[in-house]
């Protein structure tokens, strides 16, 4: 059990990744009917989700993570880019709307388990309908029934709850039903948009554990969208940080959260309350970070005449051990050894990075 917690999913490099997002962009028109203005919600997002891998997408509200989820779920039409599931570009395959074939590959679990289950139907209805639409129920009624009970057991619910109505269940149980409904289709990828944020704190961890179990036992890949860094660290193999519509940093979760390289990631990590390291962040340093990052809606250093880089596209710098696949997209990134500008003072969990980084110094 503990082994599976620490090792990244095996076999993710064997064949095409479960989900691959290439250069995804989305802009929304603003202003009146004849206005040409638009706001850029996503820009050049590249993200790969290996088989049997959970990737967390973190960021604050307005960073574009939900827009990304809506684009991948085909609820929103991306302006540019490609979304590949098992190597096939689904934006080209189903040009206008999501097809049934696509839905059987990718399922969603939404934030609000109270809104996502129709109160007029019994639990059985939701699961049976999923099975029927996607033809996964088998031939006989008996077989479908067996499958329903199996699904309920998988998500840790009693089979006799099939006859319950949603209002008879707690929030955690409802979210488990929503997960069972997604599983009924036997998808390769589950897209979970803040699945625990509306649940009571004591049952949240149960849902996270369920998601982990599904990855370990059934090899389902998940894109876990959250603003809760601690739960991302707990659940996800890799974590990607989104800021102003772009991915700014990505890496193995534990490594990313102990060595955040991008100022925005550092700010996020430093803001999470954790009694274990209370008072370990210098408030002055944090205020500076905040000033640098939050004052701007785009790159923190965009337009700064002292930074020659602001005209170029940011490049990726590798952070630390290549095995952690940890990269950051900031011109100002410097390895910790040489960083006097971006390291947070007094971070206790900060190991010294290997000196091999020195040559990757951002000299742009």
């Amino acid at each position, binding site marked *: *059990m*503990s082994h599976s*917690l*620490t090792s990244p999913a095996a076999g993710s490099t064997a064949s095409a990744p479960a989900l691959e997002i290439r250069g995804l962009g989305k802009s929304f028109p603003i202003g009146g009917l004849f206005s040409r203005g638009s706001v850029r919600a996503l820009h050049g997002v590249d993200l790969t989700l290996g088989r049997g891998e959970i990737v967390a997408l973190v960021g*604050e*509200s307005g960073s574009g993570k939900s827009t990304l989820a809506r684009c991948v779920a085909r609820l929103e039409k991306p302006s540019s880019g490609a979304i590949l599931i098992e190597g096939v570009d689904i934006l080209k395959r189903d040009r206008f709307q999501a097809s049934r074939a696509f839905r059987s590959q990718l399922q969603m679990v939404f934030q609000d388990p109270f809104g996502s289950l129709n109160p007029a139907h019994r639990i059985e209805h939701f699961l049976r309908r999923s099975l029927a639409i996607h033809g996964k129920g088998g031939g006989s009624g008996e077989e479908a029934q067996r499958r329903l009970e199996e699904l309920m057991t998988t998500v*840790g619910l009693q089979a006799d709850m099939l006859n319950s109505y949603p209002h008879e269940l*707690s929030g*955690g*149980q409802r979210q488990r039903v929503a997960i069972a409904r997604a599983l009924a289709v036997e998808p390769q990828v589950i897209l979970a948009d803040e699945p625990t944020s509306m649940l*009571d*704190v*004591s*049952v*949240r*961890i*149960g849902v*996270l*554990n369920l998601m982990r179990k599904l990855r370990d036992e059934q090899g389902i890949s998940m894109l876990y969208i959250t*603003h809760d*860094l*601690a*739960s991302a*660290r*707990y659940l996800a193999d890799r974590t990607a940080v989104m800021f102003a519509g772009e991915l700014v940093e990505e890496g193995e979760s*534990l490594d990313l*959260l*102990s060595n955040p390289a991008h100022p925005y990631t550092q*700010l*996020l*990590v*430093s*803001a*999470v*309350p*954790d*009694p*274990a*390291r*209370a008072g370990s962040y210098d*408030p002055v340093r*944090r205020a500076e970070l*905040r000033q640098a990052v*939050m004052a701007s809606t785009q790159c923190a250093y965009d337009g700064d005449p002292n930074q020659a880089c602001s005209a170029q596209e940011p490049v990726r710098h590798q952070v630390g051990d290549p095995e952690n696949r940890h990269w950051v997209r900031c011109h100002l990134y410097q390895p910790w050894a040489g960083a006097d500008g971006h390291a947070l003072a007094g971070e*206790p*969990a900060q190991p010294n990075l290997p000196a091999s980084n020195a040559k990757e110094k951002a000299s742009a």
Partner: protein
Amino acid sequence: MTISQVSFGSHEPVLDVKNLTVKYIGDTRSTTAVDRVSFSIGTGEVFGLAGESGCGKSTIANSIMRLLKDPAKIAGGSISFGGKDVLAMSAEELRRFRWQDVAMVFQSAMNSLNPVLTIGEQIVDIFTTHAGYSRKESLRRAGELLELVRIDPARLKSYPHQLSGGMRQRAVIAMAVALKPSLLILDEPTTALDVVVQQEIMAQIKELQRELGFSVLFITHDMSLMVELSHRMAVMYGGRIVETAKAQDVYATPRHPYTQALMGAFPPLTGPRIPLTGLPDGVKFRNIPDLSEAAPGHFVAPVGADASVIDSANLAGAAR
């Protein structure tokens, strides 16, 4: 006097709640939302009340402010504030008590600000009605108040919708401390906010508290946040307090299984990944007995072998 010098408990309590019982009385049935709850808050102390939705923590806050409306009824117990009996106050006394003695910050800042008045008008309103200052004097003080929470005084002319969520919450906090109350009730003040803004608001509250020396009743379900901010805390379950002690003690050695489950529900940001369990579905506590002292200053409701746990088989998995 500053908060850093206060040793908890040795001072005269600002607020003393004893055996408070609140019932919601319906036509056919009634529910006990708060059941014989007792706690006190010392001068300059930050007291945290933790628990999940529906455990009665907001009902307690509303009872202290005497804001409960039908069908809620205070069925027993006493609340005394600086020696005065809050439950016996007349309407006129209550008007002075609210805001001047005790102020409250609610979860949703947008709902506690009037959308058709500017921030300035709303702050001026506090000073003219409660403190009797002139309009000009009030406006000057309103500007100072915004500076106190690091908002540009030019924002006095802004309407609530023109401010960001964090700024609105800071404006509400400024209004709450306008009359220098001796107790500030914070009911989930940062739940709707992003983590960076949340951290700033909490830092702001700490700073204000150090400057002004008021006591705080801090209500949240986020245990990490609570342990960081509070001196002492109590954990509520089903209308009862199941554990109360210094926040650091609760964090280091949670003794009640429910507290352990709550603590286990927050993954840490440092250290190795440890499997956590939280509270399994179906575990419920019932007939929670009165607190008894398990260690010096650490009070826990004893977990009986029979009545207090419904599903003890699942509970074994809940304890870390």
